[in-house]
């Protein structure tokens, strides 16, 4: 073995030196024994998060004005879901993420075609008890009306709803020129309060051919639209301090302070006093005191400090940046410069300290002291 200055061509070396006994099977068994005891103990003591799901029944009962306003936005198709764009709509005015041709959302079209009026309101209402007598004619009147007429009715209803008193679940919207909306929205509200709207979505009564379905796409989009109808007096944050946790430069999430987002606030307490929204590290958090999906930090970080926080393409930007970081990570061994970082950090010196010490001992052997004898001691001291 020749000696000379270090060339660091260590990527061209393989070990053919001395070896030591090592039992990998024993190592695996030892870890298995540790985990088969430790994990059940941890699981028994700390359990796991299981916050109950939110329901339309709870929404209508706890935040009736938000529910009705949001439902109105589904009927007149101004909600977040109704204007989302692909994959739910392909209307020219629908919002899309991307720039020019580069818009992956648009490449695949509206493969989950959604009509919020039909899918969120009209179909579920067909299960209402007063459907034939009252609801069906109201829906027909709404469908037959012109677009300007629908807008006029919507504005009138929204204005009237602001002052509507809610007593024990019943509400009394002052009379106004809002056409069939009063009938449609009060029917949807009653259906939700009774739990019928949850059933209508869960059991797929509106489409018996997929009775076995476990597809919650429509109800979850409906929940996410909470507050999208302009909100209302009951749209106030469940966590007042939360306002201070969000940078003034960041855009508040749509629907912030309304019922659905407030569930994130309530369920995230007490650990984060707060919030599971994307602008506060989102799904890397977990409800209560449980550890979240912290391994998603390389993705969620772009929602905290990324360049696209206020952009309409925020999600696409976050995903592209995650990809931009992930690809070098995947192909790190082939990227000059990046792959040399460990060489310069020299952390390996610490990690292989035993080995380098042994090398040092070989290169600079310490003189072995002569064995002590009575005679030699006598000579040294003489």
């Amino acid at each position: 073995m020749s000696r000379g200055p270090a060339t660091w061509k260590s990527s061209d070396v393989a070990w053919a030196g001395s070896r030591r006994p090592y039992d990998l099977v024993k190592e695996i068994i030892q870890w298995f024994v540790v985990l088969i005891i430790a994990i059940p103990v941890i699981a028994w003591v700390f359990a796991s998060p299981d916050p109950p799901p939110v329901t339309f029944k709870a929404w209508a009962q706890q935040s009736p004005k938000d529910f009705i306003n949001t439902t109105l936005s589904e009927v007149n198709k101004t909600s977040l879901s109704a204007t989302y764009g692909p994959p739910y709509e392909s209307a020219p005015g629908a919002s899309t993420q991307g720039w020019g041709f580069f818009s992956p959302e648009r490449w695949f079209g509206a493969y989950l075609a959604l009509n919020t009026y039909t899918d969120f309101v009209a179909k579920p209402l067909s299960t209402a008890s007063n459907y034939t007598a009252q609801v069906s004619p109201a829906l027909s009147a709404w469908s037959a009306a012109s677009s300007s007429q629908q807008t006029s009715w919507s504005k009138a209803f929204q204005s009237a709803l602001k002052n509507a008193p809610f007593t024990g679940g019943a509400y009394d919207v002052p009379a106004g020129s809002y056409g069939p909306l009063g009938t449609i929205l009060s029917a949807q509200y009653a259906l939700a309060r009774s739990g019928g709207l949850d059933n209508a979505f869960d059991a797929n009564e509106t489409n018996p051919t997929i009775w076995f379905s476990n597809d919650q796409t429509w109800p979850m989009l409906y929940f996410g639209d909470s507050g999208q109808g302009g909100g209302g007096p009951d749209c106030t944050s469940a966590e007042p301090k939360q306002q201070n946790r969000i940078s003034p430069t960041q855009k508040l999430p749509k629907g912030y302070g309304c019922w659905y987002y407030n569930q994130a606030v309530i369920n995230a307490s007490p650990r984060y006093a707060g919030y599971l929204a994307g602008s506060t590290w989102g799904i890397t958090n977990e409800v209560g005191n449980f550890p979240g999906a912290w391994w998603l930090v390389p993705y969620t970080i772009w929602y905290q400090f990324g360049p696209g926080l206020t952009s309409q393409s925020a999600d696409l930007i976050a995903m592209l940046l995650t990809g931009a970081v992930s690809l070098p990570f995947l192909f790190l061994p082939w990227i000059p410069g990046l792959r040399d970082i460990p060489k310069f950090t020299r952390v390996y010196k610490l990690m292989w300290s035993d080995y380098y010490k042994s090398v040092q001992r070989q290169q600079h052997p310490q003189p072995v002291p002569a064995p002590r004898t009575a005679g030699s001691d006598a000579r040294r001291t003489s």
Partner: protein
Amino acid sequence: MSMTEREQVPPAPEPEGSPGQADGRRNMMAATRRYAEKYWPYSRLLPSDEPSYVTKMFYMWGSLALVAFVMLILSGCILVFKGIYWDHTSKWGLFFNSVHFWSCQIFFFGIFVHFGSSFFTAAWRGGRGFTWLFGALAFFTAILTGLTGYVLQSNYDGQWIGQQAKDAMNAVGLGGLLNLMNLDVVTGWHIVLLPLGVALFLAAHLMWVRRHGVVPPFPPEGMSFEGAPEPSGPAKAEAGSSPHAGFEPIDSDQRGQP
């Protein structure tokens, strides 16, 4: 008989009908076997020793992640027997869901520490680039598995995470393949496709770990490998008495790879 004499004796002819006797160059199974025998002889595949520098605790975290993955599969199988709603209605359901949950946390903890030690030791050296790549692919697949698992909890977590994360999936055009708000779809991904992907990438990672062995330390300062002797064989143990003598150029077919 001395060793030299024994080596000069021609091998006994294979009895007629022995497996492999009719192997031609174009026989793909024979080629596969030759490849496997070259890179995964049993002494490498199931080693009972490791290089003398393998002494530190940081070598064990990959094993921890692997065992945590086994725990995930085992607890996941139990959850499959009773369905995805079991944990909401039974204390045993919640217990096994919790075992699954904490196994997941430990799995990612093991992976992160393993990545850290692999990074700072530049474990991709010596033709080990694919070892890193397969490990990283297992990690990325595991992230998607975790995401679908969180949705599959079918509680408020599942609602919130599925409804929030769908935007990112839609933005890159993948919402049609993995609609996080459709439990029918999410269930299939979480219990079949993604764990299969993790298992395959982990298996490839482990095979490449065994193929190349544990990466040696960076050469001690003052050492050069120029003109080092060629290796005499893949399983050359106990070569040299000093720690320096452990370094040798790798096989020519591995040269040039990171």
